[in-house]
């Protein structure tokens, strides 16, 4: 590996970002964060009101990355086997044999649309796939194709008939990305793009193999002790039971982030540094990724809910209390 090779990869990832940006108007931060999760080998939970282009975004990503894409629309009657696949009796050379028929999870990019509409049982069918990248049906465990990632969406305002994701499942999402309502200019551009016959054909820029290679390179990126310590301090500060926890943590957090939280921060920070064309992680990288990496891992207490405090506010305050030098 030399600088030219790495720079070439960086350029190609940047080109991917640009290409996705062509298909999705606005939402630059969302595109960046989803891309970071892909590079960091993680799953993403996209949260936003309907109609903001969450599904379109995932489709655009799968087009640009030239990877196998499948979509699962989660509904209350969706069964786990509808996700993972099942053993079917198939006549083969005159004999009836059981053969595993892979479900939609056997894909590179899985869009779990409106994931919170399925029952916890079905939601849990994704747990093994998201963490171990395997699916177990009966007594057989099947490996999922590499690279594999789940991009799930959920609607935050429609609570009727929904099943909130359990903490264990939330923790398996590397990032929780908030899809905001577009600005006026962006909305106009969306109109121009969607209410005319003009269609944008996205070009694929990276394939699965290259993604795996980039992930390997990113994992090798060095992190200075001070930067690592900073990430650890942020996660430790989310725990109200620790002695030196900030006041806001003690007041509003019921449970702090798990060790997966700090892993998510460092992994994503490395990916961000790579995307920024650097060979090291900076404090700014940590600060940037701390919000999407921690917001779904903090269990806020009743006082926070009654005060209208959101996880991002708590994270901002925690970051403000931790010194870098």
């Amino acid at each position: 590996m030399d600088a030219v090779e790495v720079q070439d990869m960086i350029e190609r990832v940047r080109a991917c970002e640009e290409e996705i940006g062509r298909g999705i108007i606005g939402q630059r931060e969302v595109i960046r964060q989803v891309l970071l999760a892909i590079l960091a080998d993680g799953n993403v939970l996209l949260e936003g009101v309907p109609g903001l282009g969450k599904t379109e975004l995932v489709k655009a990503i799968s087009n640009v990355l030239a990877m196998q894409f499948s979509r699962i629309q989660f509904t209350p009657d969706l069964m786990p086997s509808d996700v993972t696949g099942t053993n079917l009796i198939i006549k083969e050379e005159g004999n009836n044999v059981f053969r595993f028929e892979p479900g939609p999870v056997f894909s590179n990019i899985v869009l779990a649309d409106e994931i919170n509409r399925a029952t916890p049982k079905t939601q849990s069918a994704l747990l093994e796939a998201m963490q171990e990248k395997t699916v177990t049906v009966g007594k057989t465990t099947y490996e999922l194709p590499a690279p594999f990632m789940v991009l799930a969406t959920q609607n935050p305002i429609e609570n009727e008939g929904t099943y909130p994701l359990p903490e264990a499942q939330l923790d398996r999402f590397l990032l929780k990305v908030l899809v905001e309502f577009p600005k006026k200019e962006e909305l106009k551009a969306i109109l121009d793009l969607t209410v005319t016959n003009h269609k944008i054909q996205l070009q694929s820029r990276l394939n699965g193999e290259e993604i795996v290679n980039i992930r390997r390179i990113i994992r090798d990126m060095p992190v200075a002790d001070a930067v690592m310590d900073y990430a650890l301090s942020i996660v430790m500060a989310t725990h109200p039971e620790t002695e030196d926890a900030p006041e806001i943590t003690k007041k509003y957090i019921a449970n702090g982030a798990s060790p997966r939280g700090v892993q998510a921060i460092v992994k994503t920070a490395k990916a961000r540094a790579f995307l920024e064309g650097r060979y090291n992680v900076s404090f700014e990288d940590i600060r940037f990724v701390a919000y999407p990496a921690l917001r779904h891992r903090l269990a806020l207490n009743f006082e926070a809910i009654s005060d209208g405090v959101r996880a991002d506010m708590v994270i901002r305050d925690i970051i403000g209390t931790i010194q870098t030098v």
Partner: protein
Amino acid sequence: MADQIIWKFVHKVRRRIGGQVVRRTLCDVACIGLVSACGISFLSLFIPFYYAFYVESIVLGSAVLVGIGLGIHRVPTLEQAALRTDNKGYQEKITTAFGLRGKEDPFSMLQKQDAVAVIVNLSVPKLFPFKISVQRMLVLLLLAVLLAGSNLLDSPSRQYAREHHAVQVEVKKEMEKVEKVERQLTNKESVSETEIAKVQNQLEQTKKELAKVESAKELRQVKERYLKKMQQTAEQTTDTKLRKALQKQAKQIEQEQEEQKKKLAQDAKQAMEQAKDGKGKEQKLAYDKVKDYAQTNGLEELEKQIEEYKQSDYSEADYVKANATLTQSLQNADRASKLTQKNSQSLDNRESNSSTKRQKNSNSESRTGNGNSANGNSQGRSNNGTGSNGGNQSGSGWNRGSDMGQEGSRKTTDTVTIPEGTLGEDDNLTGKANDSGKMQKSRADQSNAVAGNKVDYGKVSAEYKQKAYKQVDGASYPAKLKKQIRNYFDGLN
């Protein structure tokens, strides 16, 4: 190579930051030291504390040392120096590269090269320029000026502290002198144990009195009493060496006192002369000097007049009055001094004769017998005493009586003996009737009066005369009467 460049750069940054940290910490701690010193200085304006300046100096010195020490302690580590550099917008490139020292993997090499590319374009002095906080320097300067100013100010409290300290130094010296005499007493086989115990008792008493001394006036009083005690003891002792030592000590103290008085007199005179044409400062100085002189010599009239001079805002009329009284007092003092010298000479002659006699006569008992016979005369004279102020004179109630009764026959070389048994009794005190018709009696200072002891007549006479002069000067008698009294005392010799 990259490692070396990074290492050198970080070291350079550390030195630079370290210097700044030390300077800043020193400045901060010096500010604290200056504030403390200012506080001490201001307090010393109102609370007497002689060592305030020394304490201020120690506080300031300590602050400087603590500042340097703390500054050195705060010098950042190499890692912190690298982080500080990265804080200037280098996205932790230098910190990461510094942590990757010795690592040769491809990614580490790429990172270090990236860091070196940044470092080669950096100038440490530009990155960490030498900054002087104008605000800090102003505060420092202001505090220094404040401290200097407050130290230059004078206040009654500071004056008192200085005077008190001078008194304490003097007390210490006196204490050493007393201890020296005490040392001379030990291992003297020729002196009886009773005598040693008596002298030691007197010395102990003097030491106790010295330890309690708080003002120059008290010190003078204690010294006077000590002087008298020593003179008495010298007279009584059978040991020649001890006597000589005591006499020498007494003479020395006497001389010191005389010199001190002369100096005070000169200063007062000079200050009054300057005050004549001078302004506020000179007039204030004249007031201080004359008051000091009056208090030292117990000149109440002069003290009263100089107070009036001050209260009248240094008026011409009061100046003339005070100056006249001062001149008169100085003349009297001069006359008394000459008289004392004359008496002292005759006392020396008598002492040498007495010494020769002592050598011839080894029986001390017979001397005591003579003393007793003189005692009878003295007591008789005491009953004839008519002086009005004698009761207030220190240790002189019996002495005055002897002067009055034997004025025609007594010579300066004679000795008088303190009456046994009557010393200190209220019957022997004299006084004058007050407005209510009651007799005011006050116990005389008898510290130098030991019953049955011999006292030199000439010396007592001179002392008594001097006190009489002072009393007359201080009293508001008509000038004619004053002259008459003086003539009477002059004629005693």
